C-alpha cells in the first residue's frame, strides 16, 4: 500500500505575519520513497508537514496524495501516520493500547488488533512491553512506541517531524537504522522533517533543502554536498569554506588558481565551491592540479585540518591523521572536477 505525495505551489502565511512561512513550495515524493525536508529552525519545514497532515491549512497551493487533493479532508480522514518530536503517548493508556489506538479508531476487530500490536512491538524491539504505562519507558523507547503507533494502521504516508532530535546522539543512530528497517517492512511513503543534515542524508533517498520558506535544492544526499546550487545551501551544509571568486565559461572556470576544468551551467562571474574533504593532496599531474604551500596544520585526532595558499587564495582541506604535512611544505592539490560547483556570488 504505497502512495505518492505531490506538493504543488504551496503558500502559507500565519495570520498577522508580514512574511510568508512557505513560498510556492513544490515537492514530489514518489510512492514508497523517503524524502527529507532539511532546513534550519524557522525555515517553515514543520509548517509544511503540518499542512500535509491536515493540522494547518495553506494560504495557497495544493497537496495531493495518490493523485487526489487532500486539502479538504480533515486529518483523521487522510491516510497517514505522524510522529512528532515528542512521543506524545497517551498517558492514560498502556503501551499496547497506544499502539492499538489508530486501529481502534478504524474499528478493526480485537484479534486483528492484538496480532498487529504484537507484530509492531516486535518490530520496534520492545516485545512484552504491551502492558506497561508509557511513563515507565525511556525517551527512546517512547519514541519507538510512537513510531509503532503511527505505522499500526499501515498508512500510505508516514510523516515525521524531527522525530529523533530530542534523543541523545547514540540513540539517534539506532533510531535511524530502525526507521530504515521499518520502512523496508512497511513501505509507507515517508516525508521527514529535520534540521540535522546527517539525519537527513542517513535516512532519506532524496533531500529537499528548505531555506526561508523556499525550496533551495532538491537532490539525492551525495549531490547536495557535491553540487550545492546556491551559496546559501552550501553554507547551510557547512560547505562554503572554500568559495573562490572567478568567471565561469562552458567547461571552465577562470580564477586566481588558474583555469580549472569543470562542468557547470553557470555563466559569468561566480563563486567556485569545493568541500575541504574533496581536495586531494599529493604530487600529481594533469588537469585541476595546482601548486600550493601549506600554511597551517591542526591535528583533530581523526583527521588533519589544513590551510594552504595557492595563487594568493587560501584553501581549507582535510587529510587523514597520518599525512606527513608541515607548515611551509610545498605540495600540489587536485581539485576533482566532479566535486566542483559554481554558484552565483
Amino acid at each position, binding site marked *: 500500500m504505497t502512495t505518492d505525495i505531490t506538493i504543488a505551489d504551496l503558500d502559507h502565511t500565519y495570520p498577522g505575519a508580514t512574511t510568508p512561512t512557505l513560498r510556492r513550495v513544490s515537492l514530489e515524493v514518489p510512492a514508497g520513497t523517503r524524502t527529507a525536508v532539511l532546513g534550519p529552525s524557522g525555515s517553515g519545514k514543520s509548517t509544511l508537514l503540518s499542512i500535509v497532515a491536515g493540522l494547518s491549512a495553506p494560504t495557497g497551493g495544493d497537496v495531493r496524495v495518490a493523485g487526489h487533493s487532500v486539502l479538504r479532508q*480533515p*486529518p*483523521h480522514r487522510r491516510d497517514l501516520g505522524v510522529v*512528532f518530536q515528542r512521543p*506524545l503517548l*497517551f498517558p*492514560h493508556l498502556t503501551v499496547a493500547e497506544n499502539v492499538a489506538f489508530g486501529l481502534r479508531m478504524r474499528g478493526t476487530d480485537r484479534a486483528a488488533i492484538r496480532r498487529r500490536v504484537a507484530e509492531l512491538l516486535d518490530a520496534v524491539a520492545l516485545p512484552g512491553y504491551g502492558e506497561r504505562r508509557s511513563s515507565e519507558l525511556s525517551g527512546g523507547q517512547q519514541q519507538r512506541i510512537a513510531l509503532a503507533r503511527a505505522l499500526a494502521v499501515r498508512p500510505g504516508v508516514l510523516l515525521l517531524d524531527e522525530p529523533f532530535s530530542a534523543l541523545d546522539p547514540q540513540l539517534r543512530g539506532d533510531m535511524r537504522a530502525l526507521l530504515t528497517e521499518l520502512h523496508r517492512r512497511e513501505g509507507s511513503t515517508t516525508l521527514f522533517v529535520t534540521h540535522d543534515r546527517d539525519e537527513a542524508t542517513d535516512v532519506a533517498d532524496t533531500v529537499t533543502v528548505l531555506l526561508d520558506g523556499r525550496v533551495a535544492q532538491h537532490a539525492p544526499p551525495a549531490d547536495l554536498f557535491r553540487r550545492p546550487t546556491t551559496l546559501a545551501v552550501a553554507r547551510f551544509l557547512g560547505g562554503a569554506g572554500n568559495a573562490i571568486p572567478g568567471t565561469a565559461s562552458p567547461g571552465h572556470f577562470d580564477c586566481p588558481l588558474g583555469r580549472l576544468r569543470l562542468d557547470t551551467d553557470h555563466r559569468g562571474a561566480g563563486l567556485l565551491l569545493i568541500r575541504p574533504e574533496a581536495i586531494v593532496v599529493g604530487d600529481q599531474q594533469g588537469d585541476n592540479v595546482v601548486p600550493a604551500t601549506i600554511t597551517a596544520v591542526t591535528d583533530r585526532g581523526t583527521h588533519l585540518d589544513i590551510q594552504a595558499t595557492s595563487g594568493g587564495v587560501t584553501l581549507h582541506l582535510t587529510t587523514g591523521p597520518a599525512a606527513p604535512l608541515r607548515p611551509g611544505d610545498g605540495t600540489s592539490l587536485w581539485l576533482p572536477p566532479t566535486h566542483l560547483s559554481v554558484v552565483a556570488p
Partner: protein
Amino acid sequence: MTEAGPATGSRPVREARPGRGAVQEAGPVAGAQLVQGAGRPRRPLGAALARPTVLILTGLWVAGPLLPLAVQAFTDQWFYPDLWPARWSLVGWEQALGPQSRLAEAVATSISIGAAVAALATVLGAAAGRALAWHRLPGRRLIELVLLAPVLVPPFAVAMGAQIVYLRAGLADSLAGVVLAQLPAATAYATLLMSGVWAGVDPALERQARTLGAGAWRAFREVSLPQLRGGLVVAAMFAFLISWSDYLLTLLIGGGVVTTVPLLLFATAAGSGNQAATAAIALVAVAPPLLLTALAARQLAGRDTALLGVGR
C-alpha cells in the same frame, strides 16, 4: 505549530529535614546524651506542642459552631447557662421529618436544582476552561476578572438586579429561573477550576489522536476527557454546593414558590422559634457539603494536575 508544554513531572521535591542523626551530631558527644538520644530526638516543648495545638484550634474554629447544633437537634430542654441539656428527645426530628414538615420536599427541590446547576456549570466550565487554557484569547485577563466577579461583587446587589431582569423575562417564581440565576456564579467557579485542569492537559495529544484517525469530538473523548475526569468531578461538586447553599437568589427569583433547604431552614428559624427542629434541618443542610468536601479532598489529593489555576 505552537505546542503548550506538558505540565507533568513538576511535583515539588520534599525538602529533607534534619533527622535524628543530625541532632545527635550537632550536640557534644557525651555518654549520657547518647543514651538519651537513643530514644526520640529532643525538641523544645513549645515546638512539640505547636502542631497539635494549631490543628485543634483550627478544628474548633471550623466545627465549633456545628457542635451545639448537633446537641440541640436531640433535645427539647436546654437552657442557658447549662452546659448540657436537661433532657434528650427526638421531638425536633419528629417535627422536622413529620407529615407537617416540608423538609423532604425541600431536599428534593434542592437536589434537583443542585444537580441541574452542577451539570450545566460543569459542561460550560469545561468548554470555557479549555478555551482559556489552550487558546491565546484577546483580553484573557479581562475574562478571568469577569469570572471572578461573582466572588467580588456583593451578592445582594446581583440578586436585586437579577430579580428585575427575571421578572421581566417571565422566569421568576420557577425552578428553571432559579437554576438559571444560580448558574453564572457556579459556572464562573467551574471555569476557573477547569481552566487549571485543562492547563495540565497537553493539546498536542489531541492533535496526535486526530492524525491517528479520531475525529475532533472523538479525540476529545478518548484523549482529553479521561485526563479531565477528576477535575470534572470536583467542578460538579463545587457547583452543586454553590447551588445547595444559595439563599438570596433562590428567595428573590423563586419568589417563595421554590422552597429549598436553606429557605426552609430560615423560615423555620425565624417563624417557629422551634430550636430543635431548626437544628435538625440545619444538620440536614450541612451534611452534603461536609460529605462532598471530604470526597472532593480525596479527588484533589489524588491528582497532580494544577487545580484552580494554581501552578499554571
